[in-house]
């Protein structure tokens, strides 16, 4: 089990010493009406790092993820990606990719048309070629001209991943990305994410499946009631899913009851 890097209840940074910070979130707070979904969360991630974020339903994981991507604005605090504030300019938004259990696809369009549209939205000149490449990488190029609505849930999810990665984002935010994927799809996603990590992208992965999250993670965090209550750095040989699972359960039982 990795060492505990930083608790975050007091707003301390969930980060080891990083030579270069890619993603920097500073004291994020987000309220919805009278409820505070995210309470004073700070974190810093380097290029090529993957943070796996765990927590029970309603812990604030998705809200935090949406703030990190610039989709919702924090009430206080800010997020910076490679020194540029999010949501920021078009150029900054061009560095972000989103993957969720929602496919974010247009079901009346084909797989290729969806991914090509995403590539065009990101200003790619050779959008069609890039879209085909992304579909090939996820193993769905054979279904490129098939309408998304006729694809199985797992294939739709793979197309969705191709859509999110087509422009080579530097920050990829993943909210339950393995939902609906079969074993082949899950392997293709893991391989694509490992490639992205290899070229210096930063990943934040929200999932309920500890083993899948820990397989990619260089750090793992537990979020409860809007706060990061524990952040662990991966040991040299990676996280041990069994012992982390026991630790996670003890934290959740203690905090949530």
């Amino acid at each position, binding site marked *: 089990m990795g060492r505990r890097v930083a608790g975050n209840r007091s707003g301390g940074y969930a980060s080891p010493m990083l030579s*270069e910070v890619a993603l920097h979130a500073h004291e994020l707070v987000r309220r919805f009406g009278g409820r505070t979904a995210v309470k004073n969360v700070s974190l810093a991630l380097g290029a090529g790092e993957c943070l796996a974020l765990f927590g029970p339903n309603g812990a604030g994981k998705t809200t935090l993820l949406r703030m990190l991507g*610039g989709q919702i*604005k924090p009430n206080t605090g800010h997020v910076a990606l490679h020194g540029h504030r999010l949501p920021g*300019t078009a150029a900054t938004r061009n560095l972000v990719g989103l993957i969720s259990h929602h496919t974010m696809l*247009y079901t*009346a369009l084909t797989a290729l048309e969806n991914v090509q549209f*995403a590539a065009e*939205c*990101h200003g790619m000149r050779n959008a069609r070629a890039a879209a085909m490449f992304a579909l090939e990488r996820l193993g769905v190029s054979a279904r490129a001209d098939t309408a998304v609505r006729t694809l199985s849930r797992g294939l739709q999810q793979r197309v969705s991943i191709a859509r*999110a990665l087509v422009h080579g984002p530097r920050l990829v935010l993943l909210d339950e990305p393995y939902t609906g994927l079969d074993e082949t799809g899950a392997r293709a996603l893991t391989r694509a994410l490992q490639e992205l990590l290899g070229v210096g992208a930063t990943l934040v992965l929200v999932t309920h499946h500890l083993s899948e999250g820990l397989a990619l993670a260089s750090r793992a965090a537990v979020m409860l009631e809007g706060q990061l209550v524990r952040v662990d750095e991966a040991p040299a040989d990676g996280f041990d899913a069994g012992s982390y699972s026991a630790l996670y359960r003890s934290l959740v039982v203690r905090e949530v009851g």
Partner: protein
Amino acid sequence: MSHPTEQANPPAELPYAPPGFLRDAMRVARKDLLIEFRTRSAFIAAAVFALLSAAIFRFTWDPSAVSTLDLAPGVLWVIFAFSGILGLHRSFGIELADRALDALLASPMSRESVFAGKALANLAFIGCVQTLALPAVGLFFNLPSGKLWVGVAAASLLAAIGFVAIGTLFAAITANIRMAELMLPMLALPFFIPIIIPAAQATALLINGRPVSEAADYLKMLAGFDILFVTASTLVFPFTLEE
């Protein structure tokens, strides 16, 4: 296998060249129209509504109580307004079905260009409905033919611009709320009044064979409201999608 856009290191500078407002808007409009062309869900509903409305008004019309030339402009604009709403509702419905809107808003595309693209697609949709409804109402009510329809078409286009500007804005506002189908007409219809009244008045004058110069004041009023609604909607739209 390396991706064409992948880089070895995090970017010191941000390598992004924006495609431009108009190109982005056209891209969104093309995508929306392609989806509508594939599904034809809203257009068929709007076309059936337009034809049925024209038929119902025709067969419940008492010629001894009101003349064709007085009734037809009102019928035409009732059809345009309500069939147009069907298209407006679909505009953001397709974005919310599987949260495609999240990816669209997270992209580098400006929200103003998303709005312009949606409005352009809605304008094309309403233009198609008008192209179907104008001759249908003309036939059902035995209206005179000739050059007057050029003026009516011009008034319809001017009205459609303001209609889609304000309608697209309200479609975005109501997209995320419950009973959006009900809330969109309830909220948007009062704002359509400044468009529909001069448009119906201009149509009435033109159908009655009056010269275009007599309808000019109404057409100018329409152009004025178009400028106001397009400007205001473009400025307000980015805030409607904030969470």
